């Protein structure tokens, strides 16, 4: 991987051009004037930024170089759940919360329900909409038009597959899920030691991505205390009977992912494909070195070959915590980090994040990268194209941790135990519904 060298010149996109783009509804929030912004950015200020991004100091340095009065302290408070736990504790204690925080798309509602995030509209966030991949804006926008965070990176879902195993068994890249199922049966019959894929029984995030692709609307918040939950509707049940069927037939694996056994399986050719996200290619090239050159990327198989869709799995944003004493500077930092041409390019070249901005996605140096691990295929371009097929109306529940745990104990368990996945979806639905009602929500939906 020598993507570092690909970005020679900065194809700068001026912020001014973006400002001409459609401005969002600024609601009742009072906009902050440019002179207030200038004053805040030139006043000596110290901020704290919680993030688990390695070497993020480099992007932060760009900001500090431009605004020498500001000092940003980077704290790694853990990756994902551990960080959120600490953040909740700090928020409840009323002390020790950071000014800015890295937060994954799916967790935004979990922190807006407790009114912990700052609406970024007064700080000119609405004007940035056109710079980001379309669907990400839907993810960071609240029910009342609030802008809760700035997209940092994304994870549109695709298929990584072993070209050599496909060739050996005469399998072509499946265009539809039906073809995928046929290939799964064919491959496992030809070689009982090989499975077409592994759908991890503990990976609710991948399931949500597949729901997203299928056009499901499992969670619809219609107000702060009203939520419609439909995780066992017809779309979900189609997904359930499809994957449950493959699991019961024993033609796919369902072992937990990101474990030693799973890494070994990817290295040993036990699985011929990995249904993953745009961050998958770089990840795989680092953790399945034994298979270099054998993998290729493709879009997900489709339910309707005529209209390609995908879902998203992973990616993060930068949000500002409402309790910050320096909202202007914190908001400016979140904007700079995720829209400054040098900073966003660095995300792609230093941390190998899959970009959230159209500018970096279109950069020939990024899109034209042809890693040897994928036989010289332009994998970034494959996933950039997939990114345009992700719907922007998918919503997350404000109690995601519970939903994820319930999924693993119902749907995930049914996949692992080869029991009725469609019935498990009903259990999942009733468990989430009971939890939501217990938490005081008015629950609708099927």
């Amino acid at each position, binding site marked *: 991987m020598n993507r570092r060298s690909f970005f020679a010149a900065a194809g700068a996109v001026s912020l001014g051009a973006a400002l001409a783009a459609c401005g969002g509804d600024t609601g009742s929030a009072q906009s902050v004037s440019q002179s207030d912004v200038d004053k805040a950015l030139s006043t000596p200020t110290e901020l704290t930024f919680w993030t688990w991004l390695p070497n993020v100091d480099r992007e932060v340095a760009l900001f500090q170089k431009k605004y020498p009065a500001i000092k940003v302290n980077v704290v790694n408070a853990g990756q994902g759940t551990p960080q959120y736990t600490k953040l909740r504790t700090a928020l409840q204690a009323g002390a020790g919360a950071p000014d800015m925080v890295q937060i994954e798309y799916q967790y935004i509602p979990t922190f807006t*329900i407790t009114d912990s995030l700052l609406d970024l509209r007064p700080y000119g966030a609405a004007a940035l909409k056109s710079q980001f991949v379309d669907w990400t804006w839907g993810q960071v926008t609240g029910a009342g038009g609030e802008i809760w965070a700035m997209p940092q990176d994304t994870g549109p879902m695709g298929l990584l597959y072993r070209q050599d195993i496909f060739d050996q068994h005469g399998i072509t890249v499946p265009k539809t899920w039906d073809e995928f199922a046929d290939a799964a049966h064919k491959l496992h019959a030809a070689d009982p030691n090989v499975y077409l894929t592994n759908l991890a029984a503990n990976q609710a995030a991948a399931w949500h991505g597949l729901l997203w692709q299928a056009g499901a609307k499992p969670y619809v918040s219609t107000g702060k205390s009203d939520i419609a939950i439909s995780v066992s509707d017809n779309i979900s049940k189609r997904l359930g009977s499809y994957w449950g069927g493959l699991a019961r037939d024993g033609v796919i694996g369902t072992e*937990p992912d990101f474990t030693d056994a799973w890494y070994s399986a990817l290295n040993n050719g036990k699985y011929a494909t990995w249904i993953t996200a745009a961050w998958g290619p770089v990840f795989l090239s680092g953790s399945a070195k034994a298979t270099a050159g054998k993998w290729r990327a493709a879009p997900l198989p489709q339910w309707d070959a005529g209209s390609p869709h995908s879902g998203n799995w992973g990616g993060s944003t930068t949000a500002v915590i409402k309790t910050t004493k320096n909202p202007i500077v914190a908001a400016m930092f979140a904007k700079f980090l995720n829209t400054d041409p040098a900073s966003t390019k660095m995300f792609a070249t230093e941390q190998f994040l899959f970009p959230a901005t159209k500018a970096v996605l279109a950069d020939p140096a990024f899109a034209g990268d042809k890693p040897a691990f994928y036989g010289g295929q332009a994998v970034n371009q494959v996933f950039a194209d997939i990114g345009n097929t992700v719907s922007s109306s998918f919503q997350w529940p404000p109690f995601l941790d519970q939903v994820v745990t319930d999924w693993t104990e119902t749907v*995930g368990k049914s996949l692992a135990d080869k029991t009725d996945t469609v019935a498990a979806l009903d259990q999942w639905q009733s468990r989430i519904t009971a939890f939501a009602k217990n938490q005081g929500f008015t629950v609708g939906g099927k």
Partner: protein
Amino acid sequence: MGPRRAGALFVAPFLALFLLLFLAPLGYAAYLSLFQHRLIGGTVFVGLDNYLKAVTDPVFLRGVARVATFFVIQVPVMLVLALVFALTLDSGLLRLARVVRLGIFVPYAVPSVVAALMWGYLYGRDYGPFAQLGRLLHVPVPDFLGGSWLLGSLANVVTWEFVGYNMIILYAALRTISPDLYEAAAVDGAGAWRIAWSVKLPALRPALVLTLLFSVIGSFQLFNEPKLLQPLAPAVIDSGYTANLYAYSLAFTGQQVNYAATVSFLLGLVIVAVSYGFLFASNRRREV
């Protein structure tokens, strides 16, 4: 300064820490358990509602039943092994006694986090050494991480971790037995087995009660090992697999801190009850 005041001064540091780090959190948890917090509607006082809910909560009861089962099966095995090792070391008939003693004790020095990760690898279905060896010899190997085996697999990890620790306690107790007793027994014509049975075992009773109490607490609070093996067996180890894991999940997954405090309190009561049960039984035996 009188002896009374001096005594109070000596005890003061302990009392201060005891108040601050034990009683205060306990009191706070008790306070929390009387409320209910909801995402919509905030916090309300509910009195003993949480307790009424918990005593009929199937997940909680199942978790307690599971750790009780674990206790009944794992603890006797562990203590018998620890006792055998301690008596063997004490008999002086063993060569390299020091090396053996250290070898049995070393697993206790391994943090349980590391131990669980290590055993997780050993238990692996595809690439674990047991499974690979089984394939090599064409011997079927049980699915250590599967539903029916998992509790046994956990018991094995905990036994491996704590046999050495309990052995050291028993061994230390054996070393304090006065040699006069052995001499007297030998004069009366007792052999090594008879001495072990009639002299050593009765002298070990207080130490055995101690190890048993530690085991009650450890078993009923079982958390680390299942929590660490959870990613490897997510379909078996659910969020309420043990009572302690259930309390943790309630607090950090469901944001139900109040109910988590209730469950923790009830678990504490169960442990107190079982511990006192054992103490009571062993004291009565002594009076008879």
